[in-house]
């Protein structure tokens, strides 16, 4: 998942950021700011998504057909671009969560070894 053309994705490696973005959108359409906020809040303020990484990731996912973008009204009635999972995106999220679960479990096993 880690690609050569690694952009400045802050603390998160790209594949992980994309997985988190997909997860954030699993409950329904959100705009970019809300995605960043949701990840920030849900991670107990541990994960901070850089704007410089977030938007390229969103656009990349859109290009790959995992997300669909649509312009709509925000909570304060401003025009905003909302992202939404496609069927393809839901499938990918599923696969990514499973993979992550396996990977983190494996890492945990290793790290807990005495």
């Amino acid at each position: 998942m880690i690609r050569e053309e690694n952009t400045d994705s802050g603390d998160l490696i790209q594949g992980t950021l994309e997985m988190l973005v997909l997860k954030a959108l699993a409950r329904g359409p959100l705009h970019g700011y809300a995605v960043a906020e949701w990840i920030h809040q849900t991670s107990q303020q541990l994960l901070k998504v850089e704007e410089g990484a977030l938007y390229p990731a969103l656009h990349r996912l859109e290009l790959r057909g995992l997300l669909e973008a649509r312009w709509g009204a925000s909570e304060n009635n401003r025009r905003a671009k909302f992202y939404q999972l496609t069927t393809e995106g839901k499938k990918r999220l599923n696969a990514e969560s499973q993979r992550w679960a396996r990977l983190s479990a494996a890492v945990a096993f290793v790290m807990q070894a005495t």
Partner: protein
Amino acid sequence: MIPTLNDFLLRLKSIFRKKRMDREMAEELAFHQMLLREKLLHQGVPQSQANAAVRKTFGNPQRWHERLRELWQFRSIENLTRDITFSLRLLKKSPGFTIIALLTITLGVGANTAVFSLLNSLLLRPLPVPHNDQLVVLGMEEGWPRLNYGFPEPFFRALESKHELFQQTFASFFVNKLLIRGRSVNENVPGILVSGDYFTALQTPPLMGRYLTPEDDRPGGSPEGLAAVISESFWSTWFSRSPNVIGGKLQIANTTFTVVGVMPKRFIGANPTENPEVFVPLSTEPIIDAPHNLTKSGFHAQWLVVIGRLQPGVSLEQVNAALKPMSMPIVRDTVSETDWITRMGKVHFHFVAEPGTRGFTYIRFFFRKPLVALFAMCGGILLLACLNLASLLMARGAARERELATRLAMGATRRRLVRQLLVESLLIAIVGTTLGLAVAPLASQSLAVMLMSGNARNGTYLDTSLDLRVLLFAAGVAIVATMLIGLIPALQATSGNLNEHMKEGQHANTTHKRKLLQPIMLASEVALALILVIGAGLLSTSLYRLFTSGAGFNPHGVVNIDLDIDKQPLNGDPLLHLYRQFGEAMSHQPGVASVSFARVVPLTHTVLESSYARQGGQMQDLYMNAVAPDYFKSMSIPLFEGRDFRWTDTTASGLKIILNQSAAKLFFPDRDPLGQHILRGSEKTDFEIVGVVGDAKYEDLRNAAPPACYEPIMQLDDKKPSLTAVIRTSGPTAPLAAAARSLAAQLAPEIPAPVMATMDSIVEGSLSAERVMALLSGFFAGCALLVTGIGLYGTLAYNTARRTSEIGIRMALGAQRAGVVALVFRANTFIAAVGTAVGLIVAILASRALASFLYETSPHDPWVMVISILSLSLIASAASLLPALRASRIEPITAIRCE
């Protein structure tokens, strides 16, 4: 797959909605920034700090856009446009190179496409009729090298009913001058006699009305009278596309025909080189040809082209197997002369069917070989053009090595560099081929006109319009040319280590590493050019010899006027009187030196033959012509002995004849022929020889002047001879045509306007294939020399430019200027010598293929070879001397300092 497709579509969309995409990106970011600022303010951060924090998070908005936009764009397209603009700029910087490159490729592609479309229209294009693969052309095997395709009418009628083999069998005969009465006078219109099943077999429905049927093809026509079908263009010009044309009347050959149908424009009949406007039943031939009657001549007249449409499932082999046993019975049934039947039996006479998908035309026999030869030459010139461009591009690439190396060092990938080089070559190739394709139709049309000039009198033409096959061919040529031009320099650029060049640059310490490819390409250019030059030399020598071989008469200043006088009621002596009147009146026109008449105009492939014998001697078949007094004077044929004919040489005054020198020698090798007698034909008609004239060419210029006899028109058995006026004039010819027209209208209003042709044009027309070949090969040879010269010069100039500092150092160390000249000059000498040797060997081997086109010229003519090699060497030396001289003028100090 789906993500990739989605990706592609979205990117594609973004190209067309660039502005909107940009706006949306900006809006999305602004929205985010606003929310961020609101959050900060909400947290109690002061306004100015919040703004600063937002700015810090987002940084330069330009860069943001860049990054997002990059995501959306096709990287390759972006780069491509950049490469194209860069290449265009480079090409613009060297206009000389660009123009030469474009011209060479235009020439190569244009010439090939033009000649191919000729080839296509004559040899390849199938007839535009349904199921044309079922058509077969019938011929007669009579023991000659070539089949006889001229069927006598009785043979055809016997075959017409063989429906077990053919769905239909039809015969046709093209009548170039069908006499049709217009508003006031008769006009000549190209027409065709067709048998009953002609239209049924060609399966093209009429535009209006009906087509001719077997009922129409009976003597006297169907009960409704004589029927005719007209073409769409005739309908337009003569009837202004009136819908009431069906049932309308036409006066054809002074007989009333009823128009029963109109054929659509796409219908051209079964001969791709004819364009009949009016179709009349074959049974009306005696009316159309009056006073002649080919139908009545039975098996003596061999005139019909016969084509059949096979029954479905019957193969060509089966037809041929079935035709063989039925041939002799048909001969026996229809031929009355037992001699003839026995002779046909001896040569195993039989009918033969050949594939007829492409219809039938005699023209193919004349032009197949010249066209194929021309096509081969075009292939050579295209190859030459590509080689030349490739080597120039290579040399250019080499001269730019340093620039390329610099770009490489600055971080450009090798792939990008090669791609840019390729784009540059492709640009030249694409623009050049497009130009070539644009000029091709014009070129092929003028070539067709030139080729057919000898046959224009017979009403034939070549349709060179573009079709799918020509377009495919052109596309193929374009692709091959582009590959050849683009690939070689690109390959070379990849093969070398560009980093090395960066280090080397123009440094003098580099030993000039010659790549093998470049000299090989240049040598092949030289070889190809030599082959083309030798070919052109041989063809032009042959043409020159044909023109100067002497026809035996002087064509300059001779004008022929076709009178078609058989279309009026007079015959016998009154007709002769009419001719005399016409001749008399014409002789008073300004500039006219003498006027005469002849049955046959020399060099028009028309032949009259009779058998003659000396008393007690063997009968010999000899060419003969019937002429009026003053014929020899008009044609400038010398009268060696005796006298010319006089108008008083009538049958009553005793039959007279004039022999040419060869005929005189043939019959009377031992004595003076004057006053001797010879006998003609089986009736042994006795003629007294009154004169001996010089030999003159008869059928065509390529054959030596044959023995021939001249009989006076006053003594012809034919009471209605169709004669051509032969006029020698020193003045302009145009007023003569007008005079002849008004005179004819006055003396014989029934005949169509007389057609005039100068003897010069007839001579030229009879050599049209040779002329086109000599002209084109000369043109190609010239281009080949020029292109090769440019190639040699360009490559050497680039290579020498790279050696500037080396030469500077040599000179600083004491090299003489002459030595420098020799040093540079030598580089090309070897290439030219090897190329010449190879070219000469190939030319000697290949020129045998030209032998059949050559007249009194050996395919290994030493003079042609020597002159060709000399001219090529001259060009090569000039091309090599220029860079050498320039190199010798190098100032050592500047050369070294420029590093």
